[in-house]
């Protein structure tokens, strides 16, 4: 059954029972169907605060940035919905985690990194400032390079001796 397509700016009742919502991967992107007969055919899923609440306060947006509803608990959704939402979030917020530091050096201010990450080998340049270096829970640190790419630096205890030494020499 072809359901009714809602205009992107359509309002959904923010108190809509989440069990009536179904998310699926459609031809145009992520599709939200409400109560089996109305659809927003290209929604985007974001965390309201990905750094402090990386599992809660999930916002459903249409284009242009306009929140149609916020989900606090995904488990009330059906399995497919949970899967496509988690896929979408995982992809959007994927940040390479540094696993080894190959070299780290200052040159006239900026810090040059050559690292191995969970996504492969990488070089990047960082200006050290409170905007570019953010503490995360669990002793992790999020680094943002000059292009805006993010990298997670894990708790130093989990890194090998050489990486730790390079970081300690450069940063502490």
């Amino acid at each position, binding site marked *: 059954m072809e359901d009714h397509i809602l205009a992107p700016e359509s309002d959904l009742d923010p108190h809509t029972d989440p069990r009536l919502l179904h998310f699926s991967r459609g031809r145009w992107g992520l599709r939200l169907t409400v109560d089996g007969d109305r659809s927003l055919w290209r929604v985007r899923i974001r965390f309201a605060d990905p750094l402090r609440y990386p599992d809660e306060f999930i916002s459903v947006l249409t284009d242009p940035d306009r929140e149609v509803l916020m989900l606090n608990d995904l488990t009330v959704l059906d399995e497919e919905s949970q899967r496509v939402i988690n896929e979408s979030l995982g992809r959007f917020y994927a940040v390479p985690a540094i696993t080894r530091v190959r070299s780290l050096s200052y040159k006239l201010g900026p810090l040059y990194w050559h690292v191995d990450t969970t996504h492969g080998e990488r070089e990047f*340049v960082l200006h050290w400032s409170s905007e570019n270096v953010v503490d995360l829970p669990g002793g992790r640190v999020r680094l943002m390079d000059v292009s805006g790419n993010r*990298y997670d630096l894990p708790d130093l205890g989990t890194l090998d001796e050489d990486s730790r030494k390079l970081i300690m020499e450069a940063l502490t």
Partner: protein
Amino acid sequence: MAVATERRDGAATVSTGCNERRVWQLLGEREQLRLQSDVDQADRFGQRWLLVTDRRVLVFAQDPDVAPQPATAFSFDEIKDADTEIEVSAGGLVLTLAHNRVEVIRFSRTLAAHFADAARVIRSLAEGVPAQPSDKLPLIRCPRCGRLLPGRHARCSVCIQTHAVLLRIAGYLRPHRAIAVAVVLATLGRTLIQLIPPLVTRRMIDGALQGHAGGTVDQRFHLMTSLVGILIVAAIAGAGIQTVSQWLAALLGGRITAQMRGEVYRKLEHLPLAFHNERGTGSLLALINQDTAALEQFLVQGVPFIATNVLMFVFILGVLLKVQWELALIVLIPVPLMLFGSQRIWVRTSSLYRRWWRVRAAFSSRLSESLYGIRVSKAFAQEDRESTEFDQRNGVLREAGIKTAVTSQRLSTTLNFINSTGIFLVWLFGGHDVIYGVISLGTLVMFNSYLGQFYAPLQYFTQVSQWMSQAFAGAERVFEVLDSPEEAYVAPGSVALSPLQGSLEFRDVTFSYERGKPALKHISVSVKPGEMIGLVGRSGSGKSTFIHLVNRFYEPDSGQILVDGVDLQRIDLRSFREQVGVVLQDPFLFSGTVAENIAYARPDASFRQIVAAAKAANAHDFIVSLEDGYSFRVGERGHRLSGGERQRISIARAILRDPQLLILDEATASVDTETERLIQEALARLVQGRTTFAIAHRLSTLRNADRLFVFEGGEIKETGTHDELMEMPHGIYHRLVELQREVSRIRVVGG
């Protein structure tokens, strides 16, 4: 054709190339664009190629010249649109086809601007319009050394060699050659004088006290008296030369750092806004105040210290080798260990000082922010919270300072212990030689006297390395700023537009503050001379960015802005800005008088002209009622005036400048109704005959605009007069007006 090549780690350089066309030419297609991505489809750092010909968009898993079989290909017949979607650390190029959307290639944010440009080219080709890749895309790697560049507007910091820093510091001595030579001579004289006392001591012990040279008791006492006289003369001469050399060094250091501070400040004034946004005020303040001070300390104290001690090291070694070379070699035993230790100290303290600087810069930045925001913290009764946060940051700064000092001290103590081993060895082997009559007691005492001076350069290397660490780290930052490219006020080949006619055209302009997140997308509009354009839209829709680009605060990522038919990039910036007037929502006044602030953009204006401008701005009446009239001092940032008064002074400033192009950014947003009426009257006079761009939150104030540009999501969605736009019942402008009416009604009902 532009070819962008990309390495595993995110480099992309755009260059023209012909040899790689052959594969596609054989197929009868012309290559338009080639871009190498740095992320594969599984989001791992890897390689993929995007190739756009005049017929198709192709993606390759391997270099298309090596393996010309595409992983996927789309004909322009089926492509309806192309765009990029940016995620936290990556993005994708998405094609909209007739029945679906497909992400064809992924990339890191490093290449976001390059792929956004590729999307523009694809979109244009899909519409049948020829398009070329932009030649304004940011370089990612240094063309010289291939290393990553440290920012969109930065120069390669690796290519600025470290030893070049020292040479550049030395370069500052050139205008003060005479003083520098006098410092060197004074240093040399002082060094030679310091060599005298141990030699005299040896003669005292061996000749006068022990009488090895023979002579009567009276003759020996006479010799003693003469030698003491020599010591006194040497001490007086040494003190005199030291005083003069310190004075000269202070003079030299002061002049050089004043010159450097001046250069840094002038440079900061001419650097683009993007640079200031990237660095923040706190760190730039620290740069001007603290880094130049560290450099001064190094030049005044460090350089003479190093020079004296290096000379001393060489002279003493010469004397010791001449007197007793075997014992002199023993003196040298701890030297390699001390040099190694000093080098380690240099490395360690350098990183500590860098960290300390970072913490201090963050501290200064937060401190200035909280002092500027003191009214807000008081209004919300958050003084205690601010104090607590200050204490935390102060604590971090304290700990960083203590750690730096303690570590330096600890390393210095270790070095001192190594030094003392030399003294033990000299006593042991020298004592043996004295006992067995190889050398005299005087010679041994002389050796020990020289030891202190000989080891001093190494012993105090920690102190010197602190000075050097601080000064070099500061100098590096200073030179980094001095080497950053300025706004091109008069670029080669630029033309001066005087007088400006006031026509303006945006041709497919895209701009992003952050790579891959366009704040303006494909803007194409044109404005006639003297037209008044109202810019409307929600916050963040792109209105302010539009006027930033008009003012050439930033350069477009792609597309062109034409003023009077000339590319804005080719217009002499000074001549252009001299004909642009700006009135902002929160006008910035400098501490000084009312008259000085009005005449800020035209310092040669006469008092009559200032008064005329103030009258036209409806500011004259309140100014003359101030106790000092036009000489009233407005205070830091104009805090002694109300918001409406500051606004009218800024309008007077714009009127006095008599600009041909006028920018009004929410000029009446934060004032009461009566003040708004006065400002509106003043603005109505001001906009006459000038091309005007006005942003206003209250849409009613733009009713009389010749045309309105309605922004949404970085695009201009609607254009037309108020009446034309109101005839579009589902239009954005119509909806915004209705919303404002609704809000006004609620306000009336709610009182």
